[in-house]
């Protein structure tokens, strides 16, 4: 009995202390006022004053502030837009690859699989960094294009949203391919043959049979790209420019540059609220898939 208690309690309390409690703190600070102090916010919790006095000092000022300053609005909207567009782009690149892998000869598949997983184990930061050298004005892409005579003036790609899209597609591609591949691989090849036997052309068999049946994989892959892309910090700060507004970057700057902890916390809370919808949808999709497998 004691063993069972320890087994459950150790990871449980670890997560309570280092996951849940920190959130409560973020929530609390988002309702506090900024102050020139250490730590730079008011009120501090004081046992002498009691909980009621403490709560009475909390307010929604920071959230009101977020709605008034259109920087935040724009940052949220532009994060959503960038995450959405890059998810679609990743799907467009990832689906044909997953499909090609699932249709490849069986003995190739483990190797192809390894080639997909390899970048996943490689440092994220380095993979983003690799594109800086390619996309910059004097970068490899521009040198090649100018050498070929396709362009005369270097293309400005680095420090624009286009670079951010490329970065997200590049780094999150394995997350899109793997779930789609696993649904496609399990598809019974005779389903398409049956569809063709019943009068479908090869393309309409693909469209009417393969695509609907791979929907759970597409959904899982899209959420796995969309959710982290929304709060992304590294990609917009290395590849994006001053015009690239993303909420992860805004939060970082509020915190480290402006040292406005209450506003940074409020930004985090709102980001979390936005994420709740896709996260719940994602969980439901996963559950449905699990039930279907059983």
């Amino acid at each position: 009995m004691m063993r069972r208690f320890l087994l459950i309690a150790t990871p449980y309390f670890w997560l309570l202390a280092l996951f849940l409690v920190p959130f409560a703190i973020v929530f609390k600070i988002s309702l506090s006022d900024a102050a020139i102090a250490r730590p730079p916010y008011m009120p501090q919790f004081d046992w002498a004053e009691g909980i009621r006095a403490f709560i009475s000092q909390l307010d929604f000022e920071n959230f009101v502030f977020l709605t008034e300053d259109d920087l935040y609005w724009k940052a949220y909207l532009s994060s959503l837009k960038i995450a959405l567009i890059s998810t679609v782009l990743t799907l467009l690149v990832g689906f044909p690859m997953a499909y090609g892998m699932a249709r490849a000869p069986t003995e190739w598949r483990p190797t192809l699989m390894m080639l997909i997983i390899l970048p996943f184990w490689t440092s994220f930061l380095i993979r983003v960094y690799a594109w800086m050298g390619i996309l910059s004005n004097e970068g490899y892409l521009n040198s090649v294009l100018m050498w070929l005579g396709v362009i005369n003036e270097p293309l400005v790609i680095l420090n624009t949203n286009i670079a951010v899209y490329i970065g997200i597609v590049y780094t999150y591609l394995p997350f899109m391919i793997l779930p789609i591949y696993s649904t496609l691989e399990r598809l019974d090849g005779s389903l398409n043959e049956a569809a063709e036997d019943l009068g479908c052309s090869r393309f309409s068999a693909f469209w009417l049979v393969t695509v609907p049946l791979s929907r759970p994989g597409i959904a899982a892959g899209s959420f796995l790209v969309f959710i982290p892309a929304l709060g992304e910090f590294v990609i917009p700060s290395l590849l994006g420019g001053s015009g690239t507004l993303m909420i992860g970057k805004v939060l970082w700057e509020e915190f480290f540059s402006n040292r406005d902890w209450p506003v940074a916390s409020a930004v985090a809370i709102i980001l979390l609220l936005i994420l709740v919808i896709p996260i719940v949808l994602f969980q439901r999709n996963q559950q449905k898939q699990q039930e279907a497998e059983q």
Partner: protein
Amino acid sequence: MNRMSRFNAVSLTLGFAFLYIPMIILIIYSFNESRLVTVWGGFSTKWYGELFQNEAFLNAAWVTIKVAVMSSTIATVLGTMAAYVLVRGGRFMGRTLFSGMIYAPLVMPEVITGLSLLLLFIGIGLDRGVMTIVLAHTTFSMCYVSVVVSSRLVTFDKSLEEAALDLGCSPAESFRLVTLPIIAPAVISGWLLAFTLSLDDLVIASFTSGPSATTLPIRIFSAVRLGVTPEINALSTIMISIVTVGVITASLVTKRQMARQKAEERAAERG
């Protein structure tokens, strides 16, 4: 289905080119003599030499490895426990909250995790340094470990544990003698995943580290913000090579093992 259609071959070729060309360029230019990163100035390994003389990078690498070993080891223990509780633990108070806390960090934006942990550490007056990064990394990577291990435990034949009990094991002995040796590959890959995540992490480490502890990603990030440098190319090449060798070895070993097992099973059935 033994021949690939032209469309599939083209999409795979282009896709893999997209995935690998940036890394290949990085590797090639790490051997560039010239400091101008886009101009080829002849073959040289001098940037590797400079890298190994750079105290700051070496220190950061040492801190990073220390943090990664500690956090991934603790995370593996906690994550395996958590997985066991989730799959075999039955009902207990707050089970829903527990599984929620296991899955939430997987989808949580790093900026939020980092911010919240930093606020906690300041709140309780913990000095930021190696210890706080280890705590932070353990917390999110134990969730990854637990997902990896629990997906193995779900397919684990429960009658193996029952057989161990039936043959006189206490529940703890049955875990140590039967369950753990069988799920060991999943536990090891959980550890590797946790180790890699810790090596890789920039955002959470930036929030939770103090002036006394700078990790390699933090160092790299502050260097590359200003642009591409040949030292970083060399460093990247080293990191990519280690991962590549590791992944290829691992996949060859598992492939060989599976082939051997299959051959033995076939031989056994033939008698």
